């Protein structure tokens, strides 16, 4: 991803951000609220189109592709929250994830040809295996709405994994999880890294720092730091972005009243 910029109606959400996810690595993406993490994710999976810059995956230009095309190229993503299909069973949810491996077409489905049955069996096997990997195969016939939140998150992850993606985008996988569940998640992500590249947006620092190979920090749509976890932890810019800077409140308040236009200048 090189020099990617995105603006929404005059507001710059991302400004010339570049980052590289190496094969087989876990790459963390962090930053305070409103830093542009989700926008960057949306660009990577095609929901938002970048205004400029380029996105390349295995020598293919991706900037103009739709999400479904990207998915067929092996880029899978989980959504913030869970984003499961409420009207489908857990197993069916995961089978949808395996969509890109389905072979049987409309005609064989219409006439219920053996070809369609065989296809379904294969998808079901794949999906069951993916659920089993995450220890959620008990829930195969349940509907997502009736399951505890952590289980729903596992199912969502299984749905992303069942397509055997080459690049997995994880959007806040730890939100809503308790500490011990988070630890399990961390172990899981580590085991994934051998099979695929992972790009991870997360604000639980413990998790990020323990599983990521490299970390990129965004603030206000700009890249402010990138490197190994140690490098990033040592970077004062990162601390400042998160904790804010010490400011002389009393002094600045007087300026506000005098009606200066510093903010305009700042935004320009």
């Amino acid at each position, binding site marked *: 991803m090189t020099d990617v910029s995105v603006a929404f109606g005059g507001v710059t959400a991302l400004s010339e951000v570049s980052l590289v996810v190496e094969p087989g690595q876990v790459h963390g993406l962090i930053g305070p609220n409103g830093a542009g993490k989700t926008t960057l994710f949306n660009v990577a*999976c095609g*929901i938002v189109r970048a205004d400029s810059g380029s996105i390349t995956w295995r020598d293919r230009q991706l900037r103009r592709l*739709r*999400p*479904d095309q990207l*998915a*067929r190229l092996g880029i*899978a*993503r989980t*959504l913030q929250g869970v*984003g*499961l*299909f*409420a*009207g*489908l069973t857990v197993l*069916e*949810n995961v*089978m*949808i*994830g395996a*969509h*890109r491996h*389905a072979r*049987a077409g*409309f005609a064989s*489905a*219409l*006439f*219920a*040809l*053996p070809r*369609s*049955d065989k*296809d*379904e069996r294969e*998808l079901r096997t794949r999906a069951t295996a993916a659920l*089993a990997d995450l*220890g*959620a*195969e*008990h*829930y*195969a*016939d*349940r*509907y997502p709405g*009736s*399951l*505890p939140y*952590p*289980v729903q998150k*596992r199912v969502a992850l299984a*749905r992303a994994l069942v*397509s055997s993606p080459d690049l997995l985008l994880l959007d806040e996988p730890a939100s809503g999880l*308790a500490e*011990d*569940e988070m630890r*399990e998640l961390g172990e899981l992500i580590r085991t994934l890294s051998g099979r695929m590249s992972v790009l991870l947006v997360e604000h639980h620092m413990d998790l990020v720092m323990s599983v990521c190979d490299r970390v990129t920090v965004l603030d206000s749509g700009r890249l402010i730091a990138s490197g190994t976890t140690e490098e990033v932890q040592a970077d004062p810019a990162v601390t400042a972005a998160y904790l804010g800077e010490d400011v002389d409140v009393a002094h600045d308040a007087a300026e506000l009243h005098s009606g200066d236009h510093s903010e305009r200048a700042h935004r320009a």
Partner: protein
Amino acid sequence: MSDLQTQGQPPAGNPATAAAPASTSSRTSRIPLPESTLLRHLLAVLVCAVAAVVLLEITDPFRNSQLATLSYYAIAAGGLTVLTGLNGQISLGHGALMAVGAYTTGLFLSADEPLPLPLIFLAAVVVTSLVGALVGAAASRLHGPYLAGATLALAVGLPGLALKFKETLGGDQGLRVRAPRAPDWFGEAIKAVSGNPASATKWLAYVGAIALLITYFLLANLVRSRIGRTWRAVRDNDVAAELAGIRLGSWRVLAFVVSAACAGLGGAVLAIVVRLAAPSAFTLVLSLALLTAIVLGGLGSLLGALIGSALLVFLPQLTTDLGSAAGLDGTEAAQLAPFVYGVVLVVAMIFAPAGFVGTIRLRWLARRAKRAIARESGR
């Protein structure tokens, strides 16, 4: 919270404590059903066909014609169930699509030497599918109220064509449809089965029943397959579906085409049963009646569509009788049925959005989930 503990441990492989029994395995344990979807569905068709023959032979000609009416409602409602229930797209234009099928059938039958009936039906399906593809392509970018409004305009606008092309389509009066005669073998077959005389009404009722069985067989195949699952996924969460590699537009158009094909066949059956294709038969009320049928039956269930259609056929009769008994005159009493449709739509959406079949299914699921949880916590 006990779920978490079960989760944290590796699966015990103990079937007694498994969270929920697999529905397929519990089903096969009771009634041995064939593995193949095709065989299973063919078996169901066979059972239904026998039931249809029995039903048609034990009832009088009047009921026969009512059942013919039921068949074309159910065919169209089945299609609408796919579109609205499975794919989440609403259409108020299905009455207009039925008109396309009916007029196509009428035109083909008016030829001096008409084609065989199945071919004509096929033609009606193809023509309506094409129209459906057109509408679907426009509709695939719309949602909710926009889609409802656009298809509403379709329902109100399309019959205008019949008025515009008076010579071929018959204007306000409509197009008389020459219903095909029953072939000789039909009379003999009926005589052999039940000894009843084979009337023209009976023949049409059989045509309707066959068309209905074929339609529901094919729709059931689709619903059970990857196709149906993908439609439901698009309905439930389009962003997640797209991220899973599903091209939303194509799947929405496909649903519209399948649905339109059913409407076309329904219209074709309607044309031969009513023997007339006229604008007054395809008003907005027809579209809304179809919508009522599927909402009542439960969005997304073919059985629900069938039950809902049955209500469409028998309810007007019932309410009109009630109305007359209550002292309303004929035309007033006839309005009771649409009144009930409307009230049913409102009440169903407020109190039981899942419809008749859906509500029962949800109850069952909730009970099953509760049992599963009870079992887990008892562990």
